[in-house]
């Protein structure tokens, strides 16, 4: 552990990414992918990560041509040990972007959707399945309704039903832990603008250790939750000490068997980690038969599915907000203006709030690749000039689909549209 780290709470992993000095060529390529300038070291010298400004997003790791960055947290063997323990129910919480990427590691064409094979492989390994798409649907309901509350408060002065404080507009999404950490460490005045909804992973962990106890017939203490994510920052998110809501809830309801708090998510495996786990257990995902999730917790809608792409959260949230405000479904269901790889996408939606019988225009923006695109948007918000009411932010270029925990695709890179030469010097 880096004892000098100042921007972490007790118990958090202080920086998931480090750079192996012996492999680093000092080429500077990683710096151009880092959203916070957390990589130190002059051009030509060995580089290292300043853990206090690092968001643990893993973009340097997937883009370093020489494989120098590595993850400091590797719990593959720990998960295998839990899977072998008959007293423990290991719940795998699979994020949307994992199922379209893991096939690559087993020789399937890049982009193959392998949900059934993934379920089959996970069951073979001994996991119970909680599809994170299910939790993404929960997040959408939360974020969508929270946005309506904030908007009605801003436009009609509506008060909170429970007397709680209502956050300001624009509302930022909060499901990307790298983005949340950027706000917390660099722009703390914007914390109230972040949606108060937890990320799908954290909602899933809480559900698994509360509602899931009935589904799997095990006490929360015997349920071991594993987030399976395209994202290295999710490892840091899961280690945040405040994320033990299931324990608090169970304790309050007399269902906690111990005084020792347990986390909602016990550990996180990236997509790469999961394929390593399968390989260690001699499971060939490509050859596995399709299986289903086995419980309601593996059911989900199309809205949860698109979370992994830039614009996905916004599109899903807009569908919810539209339905709640107008009482009708958004038609067409696809909200195309927020799709695609443009750095900052914006759109306006006119909708009629049936409660107030008034037409309102909602301006939304979708930002990904924050290393390149976030600064002007934040400056506008800080200066009070932002035209937007709801802003989705995803750290990684393209969204979680290109997250720092995904299989490293040797044939591509995350440089979106960069053409001009970059002359490294200092």
């Amino acid at each position, binding site marked *: 552990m880096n004892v000098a780290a100042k921007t972490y709470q007790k118990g958090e992993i202080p920086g998931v990414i480090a750079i192996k000095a012996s492999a680093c060529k*000092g080429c500077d390529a990683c710096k151009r992918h880092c959203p916070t300038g957390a990589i130190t070291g*002059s051009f030509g010298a*060995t580089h290292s990560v300043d853990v206090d400004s690092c968001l643990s997003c893993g973009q340097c790791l997937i883009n370093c041509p020489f494989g120098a960055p590595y993850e400091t947290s590797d719990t593959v063997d720990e998960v295998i040990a839990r899977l072998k323990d008959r007293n423990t129910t290991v719940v795998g919480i699979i994020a949307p972007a994992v199922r379209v990427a893991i096939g690559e590691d087993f020789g399937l064409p890049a982009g193959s959707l392998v949900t059934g094979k993934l379920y089959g492989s996970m069951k073979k390994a001994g996991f119970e399945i909680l599809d994170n798409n299910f939790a993404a649907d929960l997040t959408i309901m939360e974020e969508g309704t929270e946005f309506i509350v904030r908007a009605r408060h801003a436009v009609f002065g509506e008060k909170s039903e429970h007397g709680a404080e209502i956050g300001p507009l624009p509302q930022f999404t909060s499901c990307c832990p790298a983005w949340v950490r950027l706000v917390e460490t660099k722009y703390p005045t914007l914390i109230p603008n972040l949606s108060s909804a937890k990320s799908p992973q954290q909602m899933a962990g809480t559900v698994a250790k509360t509602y899931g106890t009935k589904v799997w017939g095990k006490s929360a203490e015997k349920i071991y939750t594993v987030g399976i994510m395209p994202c290295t920052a999710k490892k840091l998110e899961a280690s945040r000490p405040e994320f033990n809501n299931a324990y608090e809830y169970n304790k309050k309801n007399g269902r906690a068997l111990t005084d020792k708090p347990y986390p909602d998510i016990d550990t996180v495996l990236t997509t790469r980690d999961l394929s390593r786990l399968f390989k260690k257990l001699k499971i060939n995902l490509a050859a596995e038969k399709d299986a289903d999730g086995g419980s309601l917790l593996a059911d989900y809608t199309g809205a949860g599915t698109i979370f992994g792409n830039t614009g996905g959260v916004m599109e899903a949230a807009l569908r919810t907000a539209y339905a709640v405000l107008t009482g009708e479904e958004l038609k067409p269901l696809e909200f195309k203006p927020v799709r695609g790889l443009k750095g900052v996408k914006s759109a306006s939606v006119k909708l009629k709030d049936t409660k107030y019988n008034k037409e309102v225009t909602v301006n939304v923006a979708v930002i990904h690749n924050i290393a390149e695109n976030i600064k002007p948007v934040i400056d506008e918000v800080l200066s009070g000039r932002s035209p937007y009411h709801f802003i989705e932010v995803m750290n990684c270029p393209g969204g979680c689909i290109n997250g720092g925990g995904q299989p490293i695709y040797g044939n*591509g890179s995350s440089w979106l549209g960069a053409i001009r030469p970059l002359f490294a*010097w200092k």
Partner: protein
Amino acid sequence: MISQKTILKHPLSVRIFHYLLILSFLPLAVTGVFLYFKPLSESAMNLTMQIHVVAGVVLTLDAIAFFLIGFNRVVLFLKRIFYFSINDIKWFAILGGYPQKILLRKKVVVPSMGKYNSGQKLFGICVLIGGTILIFTGWILWALPHLMPREAVSLLGTLHTFFAWVLTLFLLVHLFLGIYMFDDFKAMILHGKIPYDEAKEMAPLWVEKEIISISENSY
């Protein structure tokens, strides 16, 4: 009697190209070794890399300029280094007689050579191919890594390191023999000319087949 006649072996354009090569490749090799082992402080490593980059740019410009301005010399050079005969095998069998001459102070019969002996031809081929690869990979690694897939950049990095080592080690031999053959060294560094007698001994085929006498006493 020793003849005073000389032969122009390295015309001015070649010498200028070679001066710039010395100015660029020597710093490139030295800084490259430092960059490989990374023994210095951060600021010193940065300076090392900056020198490496500047020297790399000089080398690139030098190569392009020579290719454009001295195109006929480039063609001649290519013809010479890629011309092989049985003599080359015989030459390598005794390593041009140098080990015998340097270590045993013994003169052995060396197969007749053209303007470049077999060792120089091999060095020329390595410089041509290795140098081109080093320039190409160096530019991608420095300025254009984003235009290549990640694994391609990694492969180019490996190629860069491999050819850098090949040429750096060859350079040591080249420097040693270059200075050992002092007349040739003076010709390349100073005036371009070598004594006729020496040329006749070291490169008889060149003298016989390619050299045209301008006048009896001409230099």
